[in-house]
């Protein structure tokens, strides 16, 4: 068995409620800016996508039209990542660039659905009614805009990324497993370079309904993640797309690419959560698998704000009191599949800028950290299943 290859993050693309690109995000994080909309879907709260000119990364209007918002967000972020890595339009590299996308999907045409349900409520639904309405009222391309693997398909069409392609599904856990598998494939020499990421449109009533089934939505008034508690828990859905270009050190050096950071390790598990404390225990079991970590450091978490998992994450964090913690959910909302790639992106960005962004937390759980971080742990625990940790490090 040959020695595992070192894997570098050489490209980052982010678009979110805070804007687009690395400078805009760095400035917003340092200004502790938060963009929430409490009115549009009241009583539910969302972090809406900042205004974006999709033309900049998806030049053909026809391509934009056949995508739903989540696909446009993702295809846009993927383009930013390719630009950031300096491989945009490089057909030789793109032709063998592998892709792992963590995706949801299923974006509905809600007015059509609601009109159909109204007819049922009025007793106007004959046996063939549903099929007739769906066949006549839905635009034919909606089917493509709903399919999970069509984000990867659109990235291939628009940006020409045409190595192997994999789409992982399964909420937050899919966003942990995508970089985990990409890292394993590059480290073992099966792949030289990969585009890895996810996209989420949080401004969807069909998703609000789905999460409302489990009473997961934060309602009425926004609060930072750590200020939510048992009586007022929940997540505010966020819109965001995050993609990373990951490649072997040899490959990056050979093309003279400037890395942001090294992705050293990604570990994941699926705790059976019926027992209280299972998530805390799962994270404790994963922790030593990252390697020898010090008693103090930096940890960026995708903590949702829903219970009981948030309390279990707090219990885990309380056992590592030397760590300066940052919860991305406070600034970005909850972006499901995208939350873990977002944590990786902000970790790599912080390392490359030689600083950690400031706390954004009235409860005092997040502490100041003035030194330049050499290592950042990224944590994720899904709102209902899946846990993961990653270690992002400065390149020596």
């Amino acid at each position, binding site marked *: 068995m040959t020695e595992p290859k070192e894997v570098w993050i050489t490209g980052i693309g982010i678009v979110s409620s805070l804007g687009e690109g690395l400078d805009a995000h760095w400035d917003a994080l340092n200004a502790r800016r938060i963009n929430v909309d409490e009115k549009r879907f009241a009583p539910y709260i969302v972090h809406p996508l900042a205004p974006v000119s999709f033309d900049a990364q998806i030049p053909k209007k026809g391509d934009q039209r056949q995508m739903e918002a989540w696909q446009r967000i993702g295809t846009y972020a993927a383009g930013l990542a390719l630009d950031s890595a300096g491989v945009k339009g490089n057909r030789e590299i793109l032709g063998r660039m592998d892709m792992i996308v963590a995706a949801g999907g299923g974006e509905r045409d809600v007015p059509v659905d*609601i009109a159909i*349900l109204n007819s049922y409520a009025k007793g106007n639904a004959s046996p063939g009614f549903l099929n007739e309405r769906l066949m006549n009222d839905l635009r034919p391309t909606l089917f493509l805009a709903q399919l999970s693997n069509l984000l990867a398909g659109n990235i291939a069409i628009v940006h020409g990324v045409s190595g192997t392609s994999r789409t992982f599904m399964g909420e937050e856990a899919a966003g942990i497993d995508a970089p*985990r598998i990409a890292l*394993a494939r590059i480290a073992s020499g099966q792949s030289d370079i990969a585009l890895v990421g996810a996209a989420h449109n949080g401004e969807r009533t069909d998703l609000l*309904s*789905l999460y*409302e089934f489990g009473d997961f939505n934060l309602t009425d008034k926004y609060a930072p993640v750590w200020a939510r508690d048992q009586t007022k828990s929940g997540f505010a859905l966020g819109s965001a797309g995050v993609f990373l270009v990951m490649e072997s050190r040899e490959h990056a050096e050979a093309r003279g690419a400037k890395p942001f950071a090294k992705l050293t390790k990604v570990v994941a598990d*699926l705790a059976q959560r019926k027992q209280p404390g299972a998530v805390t225990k799962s994270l404790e079991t994963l922790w030593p698998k990252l390697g020898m970590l010090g008693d103090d450091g930096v940890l960026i978490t995708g903590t949702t704000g829903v219970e009981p998992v948030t309390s279990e994450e707090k219990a885990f964090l309380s056992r590592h009191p030397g760590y300066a913690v940052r919860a991305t959910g406070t600034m970005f909302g909850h972006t499901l599949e995208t939350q873990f790639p977002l944590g990786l992106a902000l970790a790599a960005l912080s390392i490359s800028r030689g600083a950690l962004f400031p706390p954004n937390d009235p409860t005092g759980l997040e502490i100041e950290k003035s030194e330049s971080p050499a290592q950042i742990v990224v944590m994720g625990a899904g709102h209902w299943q899946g846990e*993961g940790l990653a270690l992002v490090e400065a390149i020596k």
Partner: protein
Amino acid sequence: MTAPRDKFGRPIVVVTGMGVVTSLGAGKEDNWTRLTAGECGIRTVTRFPIDGLKTTMAGTVDFITVDPSSSTGLTERLADIATEEALGQSGIGGKGDFPGPLFLAVAPVEVEWPQRIEIGQAVGKTDFDVTDFLAVSGGGKFAKYHHRFMFGSIAGYLAEKFGTKGSPISLSTACASGATAIQLGACSTHSRGTRPS
């Protein structure tokens, strides 16, 4: 002990158990009997109304039902049956303790019409908008539909029942999904990289 290697020096991966459910039947035996007898599983769809649809036939598994009816629920049941058969043949691990990861090819998931209609009826009005629909979605009455319509729900169920190790991966790459799942499984056996960690 030295494991046999392929020409790339990787341990040879062998198949020790298989399970199958198709429109022809459940299990390898039933499928083989019907296949070699020249039977065809393609027939008129009966699982849902086809009035007005241009497509009326499919290779549909209509001899297994789940309650409440949903394609995600049926998918989970089919996966359950096929996994039982595969593990039974393989004899690997113990009950609820499979010693490796799970890679599962599944179709995308969304809330389905019987459930939408049920929630729409819970609104209790004949002229409502999406705000009314959202207002009745919460409160725990439809809590089971959250789990049912999560993308990771089938893999989560299989991981719990069969005790697979690590984070199960659900993947979708259209018609290549099954091949991709098998490829990831083979790679995880080749290298430590994708083993549960």
